[in-house]
């Protein structure tokens, strides 16, 4: 059965600021939904709520027909942060963390970690200290660390921000490979419209915590319905 994520009227307030305002959308297994919008539009807030790291003030998150709470979400969703955070230990221990806390057998962990590191050209990096790796390598480790636990929802918060173009392409290719397997729903926040165009099934434009445009990638760029989105896509949006 194909997984289905439904967000219904999510609201999140930070004192007077409405970070999310009656936000509703759907995503299906094998799709990549890009969240675009200016800084402060609510992209990261939304990702953190889907990841079960923050609570919405109200609204529902429904997965395969079942409303999920914060603990359920943490079991099925995982977030790759914009700034790759590494545990102060080796690459192996970083990548194996999610499997270890799930009680996976240590032999199986070893095999999976080595296979995963090889798949992203990080073979031989297992015993290196993760914090000593370059930004691009750390982001690869972060992505492998998230995907190795086989999440049903993979959340990416600007995964290529702060990376040089060659590392950004490596990360994009990793995301494409994950996407090809059609094993999970991917929700990605990005400022890079070209990247969103290349990778997304659907693009959601967030503006002051609301989705003002949600359409297929091609349509989003060719014929956006919302006037603000039209300006956003053409680079004319002024603040």
């Amino acid at each position, binding site marked *: 059965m194909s997984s289905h994520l439904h967000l219904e009227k999510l609201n999140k307030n930070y004192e007077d600021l409405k970070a999310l305002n009656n936000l509703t959308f759907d995503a299906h297994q094998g799709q990549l939904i890009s969240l675009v919008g200016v800084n402060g539009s609510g992209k990261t807030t939304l990702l953190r709520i889907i990841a079960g790291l923050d609570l919405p003030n109200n609204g529902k998150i429904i997965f395969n027909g079942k409303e999920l709470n914060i603990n359920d979400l943490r079991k099925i*969703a995982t977030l790759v942060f914009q700034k790759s955070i590494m*545990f102060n230990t080796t690459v192996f221990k970083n990548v194996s963390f999610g499997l270890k806390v799930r009680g996976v057998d240590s032999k199986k962990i070893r095999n999976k970690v080595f296979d995963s590191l090889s798949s992203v050209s990080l073979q031989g990096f297992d015993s290196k200290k993760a914090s000593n790796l370059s930004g691009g390598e750390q982001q690869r480790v972060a992505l492998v660390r998230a995907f190795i636990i086989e999440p049903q929802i993979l959340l990416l918060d600007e995964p290529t921000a702060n990376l040089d173009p060659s590392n950004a392409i490596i990360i994009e290719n990793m995301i494409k490979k994950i996407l090809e397997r059609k094993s999970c729903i991917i929700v990605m926040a990005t400022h890079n419209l070209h990247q969103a165009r290349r990778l997304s099934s659907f693009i959601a434009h967030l503006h002051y915590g609301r989705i003002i445009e949600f359409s297929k990638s091609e349509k989003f760029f060719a014929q956006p319905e919302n006037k603000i989105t039209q300006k956003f896509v053409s680079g004319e949006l002024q603040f």
Partner: protein
Amino acid sequence: MFETFIEAIHQAIILIWKGDPEVFSIAIRSLSVSGLATLLSCLWGLPIALGLALSSFRGKKLIRGFFNAMLGVPTVALGLILYLLLSKSGPLGIFQLLYTPLGISIGQSLLITPIVVSFAASAIESTDIGVKDLARTLGASRFQTDLAVMHESTWGIILAIVASFSRAFAELGVAIMIGGNIRYVTRVLTTSIALETARGEIAFSIALTIILMIIVFSLTFIINFLRRT
């Protein structure tokens, strides 16, 4: 004056070099008394530090403030309070801890508990907030998340323990008031230094001071070395 000082250092080195039994028994007693004090303070101090750093509850700031304020408690004041509690007619007199090495250890453990609590709690709190989020998003339970955060702050906690030991090892007030500086029983480095200096046995005092300094500096050096490697 300078010549006397040089002569005293010379004698001190001979005392250490020849392995004077009294000097070494005092040093070993100091290590064991303060070591036990550190162990005891960690036994209750670390769980308190973890609780303060990793959970939020009403009165947390008050407790934190209490331990921070207790960092500067004068050792003589604590020694006096403990003396009154442990003396024969005191409420804890039945335990007969006054003038015993165990009594000094307990006194010192109370003295250094605020250091363990405040320093370890700060070390845990200063761990990148992202580590907590990272552990959670990878599916860790509350307990597993706390373990991950603790693991990240291991060196901070070790430094808190070392600082506590150094404080216990170098303090005088509690050791002299609870221990009474009894030869071969409760005499430790600091109480001996005070006594021998008062008696004019400067060489002996300097020998003990050198040992005191070597132990404290070696410990700090070893920890810093391990931390770097």
